[in-house]
């Protein structure tokens, strides 16, 4: 322990000894909340900058493609082209001259090896093999991805092509030899193919340095900052203060009332939109309902709850105006590519909105419930509506506040909902095992080529989901509906827009009838805010050369940033 502590002190000491030149360094915030535990790109958890493509995950390791949030398309990274040669075979062609940071060429062999690697060990990416039959080299630049004949779901494979980062076979073959699972590998000296290499890391920060022999200089350009540093802040407010005081250039943190930074204090801070909602909505934090609890089992009770919740207030206060008012659909109505499937008429006819009187009407007229002396309704069979506990992890202020509002507005109508905020691991465990009344989470957060299919799949497909009590990674309330599952299969097999729209419409109507969950608000995939004291030319709605992302095609931002002359 002592040795470790001393070593940590030494590392930290070195970090402080050499300040990096401010005009050549971009400081980031909001993607790393504790000391990094190695740089293995296959593990989940915080390990900036290798954790996931969205969180600067292209700096060291690169995937074949990047997902473009604005266009909904795949943009080239290591691969320059994807072509469907038949119904279930895609040919992916690598750029010429791809090369590892140690000088070895990056070949189709590395791609085939990496996809084999994620299958052989139970990595989060192993799921791609539910949809793949094989990955093979066609020639020295082309790899063939053959879909599984039983589940030829193109969108899911496209999604994974943007998620799996390619690793060098000549390095990982050796690493792999000494461990039972590659998830044990800490990978303290990552060798990737990207434009940056690891400079140093300590409990205070992680820093990367530009790799000047990057293979993609011609194709992707040369990033402007020589160094990128992610300081590790103890809390949200420390990071937000640093953004306001020009110590952080580019942040992924939730900042309450960010407009005050420029309106009240004149800080050169900006976001994607210069006015509300400031960020691009991309996910739906939703209240999952336990369908097996007495009372909640009854769809009309869920419907009354859905009418009771004050969505405008959640958008205004809990989300700090960063969210449009939530609609009763599983499809995001604005901003992102999936909005083309949103059906206004169906939502008006079959959905819900904030209307406490309607909630009371459903309870009294349709359910025949009577109001007890404590103001809470009781069903004719004697079931009291609550107390039901709604929970989310402690410290997630926007979510905690949203649940407080759910609780207040439900009780105002006569449904007893209470809140609880356990530590994150406890909250996750309860959600995974189905041990909850109401729990708040994002079904498939983020965006991908597979959205909105993957969100419906997450909420309404019970095939392959563990029993209640065991750990499940989706469909936490184990909602089951044969018709929905058949529709999901049909949607997976078609690329015809009209047919897809019809299927999603039917799925959304089933969702609005059965109400397995209630969307409370929209959240951006990432919070994207910047301070232009040292660097300018961040993309915005008016200058949309890249999407407001810290990774994926947002990587282009590093190439286009301009240092401020001083």
């Amino acid at each position: 322990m002592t040795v470790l502590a001393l070593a940590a002190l030494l590392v930290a000491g070195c970090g402080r000894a050499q300040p990096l030149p401010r005009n050549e360094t971009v400081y980031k915030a909001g993607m790393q909340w504790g000391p990094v535990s190695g740089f293995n790109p296959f593990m989940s958890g915080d390990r900036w900058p290798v954790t996931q493509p969205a969180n600067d995950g292209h700096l060291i390791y690169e995937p074949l493609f990047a997902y473009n949030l604005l266009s909904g398309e795949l943009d080239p990274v290591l691969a320059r082209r994807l072509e469907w040669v038949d119904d279930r075979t895609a040919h992916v062609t690598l750029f010429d001259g791809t090369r590892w940071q140690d000088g070895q060429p990056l070949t189709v062999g590395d791609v085939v090896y990496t996809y084999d690697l994620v299958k052989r060990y139970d990595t989060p990416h192993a799921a791609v093999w539910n949809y793949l039959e094989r990955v093979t080299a066609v020639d020295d630049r082309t790899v063939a991805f053959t879909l599984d004949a039983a589940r030829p779901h193109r969108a899911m494979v496209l999604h994974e092509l943007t998620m799996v980062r390619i690793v060098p076979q000549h390095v990982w073959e050796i690493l792999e030899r000494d461990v039972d699972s590659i998830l044990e590998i800490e990978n303290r000296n990552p060798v990737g193919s990207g434009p940056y290499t690891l400079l140093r890391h300590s409990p205070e920060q992680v820093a990367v340095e530009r790799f000047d022999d990057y293979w993609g200089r011609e194709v992707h350009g040369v990033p402007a900052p020589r160094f990128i540093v992610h300081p590790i802040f103890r809390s949200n407010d420390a990071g937000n203060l640093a953004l306001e005081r020009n110590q952080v250039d580019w942040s992924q943190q939730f900042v309450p009332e960010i407009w005050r930074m420029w309106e009240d204090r004149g800080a050169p801070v900006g976001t994607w939109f210069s006015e509300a909602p400031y960020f691009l909505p991309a996910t739906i934090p939703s209240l999952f309902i336990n369908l097996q609890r007495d009372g909640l089992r009854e769809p009309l009770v869920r419907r009354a709850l859905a009418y009771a919740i004050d969505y405008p207030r959640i958008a205004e206060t809990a989300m700090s105006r960063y969210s449009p008012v939530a609609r009763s659909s599983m499809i995001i109505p604005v901003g992102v590519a999936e909005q083309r499937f949103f059906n206004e008429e169906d939502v008006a006819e079959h959905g819900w909105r904030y209307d406490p009187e309607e909630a009371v009407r459903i309870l009294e007229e349709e359910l025949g419930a009577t109001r007890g002396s404590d103001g809470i309704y009781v069903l004719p069979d004697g079931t009291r509506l609550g107390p039901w506990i709604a929970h989310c992890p402690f410290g997630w202020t926007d979510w905690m506040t949203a649940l407080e509002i759910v609780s207040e507005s439900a009780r105002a109508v006569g449904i007893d909902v209470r809140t609880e905020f356990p530590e994150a691991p406890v909250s996750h465990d309860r959600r995974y095992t189905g041990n909850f009344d109401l729990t708040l989470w994002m079904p498939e957060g983020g965006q991908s080529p597979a959205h909105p299919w993957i969100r419906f799949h997450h909420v309404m497909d019970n095939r392959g989901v563990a029993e209640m009590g065991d750990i499940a990674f989706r469909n936490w309330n184990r909602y089951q509906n044969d018709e929905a599952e058949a529709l999901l299969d049909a949607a997976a097999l078609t690329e015809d827009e009209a047919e897809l729209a019809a299927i999603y419409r039917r799925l959304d109507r089933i969702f609005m009838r059965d109400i397995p969950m209630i969307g409370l608000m929209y959240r951006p995939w990432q919070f994207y805010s910047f301070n232009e004291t040292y660097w300018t030319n961040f993309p915005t709605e008016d200058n949309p050369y890249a999407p407001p992302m810290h990774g994926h095609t947002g990587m282009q931002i590093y190439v286009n940033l301009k240092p401020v002359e001083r």
Partner: protein
Amino acid sequence: MEIIRILLRSKRFVLGFGILAAVLAFALLGPRFLTDVAPFQRVGGLYDAPSRDTPLGTDNFGRDVFTQLMFGTRTSLHIGLVAGFVATLIGVTIGTLAGYVSGMVEEALMGFTNVLITIPPIVVLILLSVAVDARTATTMGVIIGVTAWPWTARAVRAQTSSLRTREHVDIARISGVGSLEMMLVEILPYMFSYIFMAFILQLTGAILAEATLSMLGLGPFQTVSLGTMLHWSLMWESVRIGAWWAFVPATVFLSITTFSLILMNAGMDEIFNPTLRHTR
């Protein structure tokens, strides 16, 4: 009546009592006369600045801070009173027993008390608060009370031990008065002033303990207290944003409430403790 006349002689007590009375009036009568919104009612947006309708602005939920302050003070006092009562009851019972009944009983009771006194109460408080499912204001008061009594027990035992050797106690004992009657009639009444002062200190401690617990996110459910107000203002970075109205009023009310109680306590000390009494 006599006692009140004596107490009114202390300027400190009068000042402390005056402040407390004002706080109480604000908390108890305020909701009827000073505001027409409910504590959980939304009246504005996230951290709206003070205005005509919202004299102290709105909190992160868009609720009126001025109204919250009344209900919050009320809850905090409620918790303080329950906790003070519970702690004083347990402390006086154990202290009197231990002080009056010597031997094994005293050893056992004081041993137990001394063990508890070495455990930092905040640890026990947090564990108990996490364990309890329904944290109403009353249960929180009880939780705080059952962790706060040891020092009262020690002090009361010391008082009892010295009272036990007084002559009137000896006379009562010779007259054949039973132990229970002895404690209730011959010992306790002589400690009332002291017990009341201990109660006030317990009340002060409990109001602060509620604030501590609430700021850790372990506050009472579905109600607003001064501690929960501070909790949410911290969570929503009101200090960085500059929304002073979200944290200053609650802090001020916590301070003046505890200050007034401590002032009353000091005033009473002055009266009841002859060594501190001003010569007149």
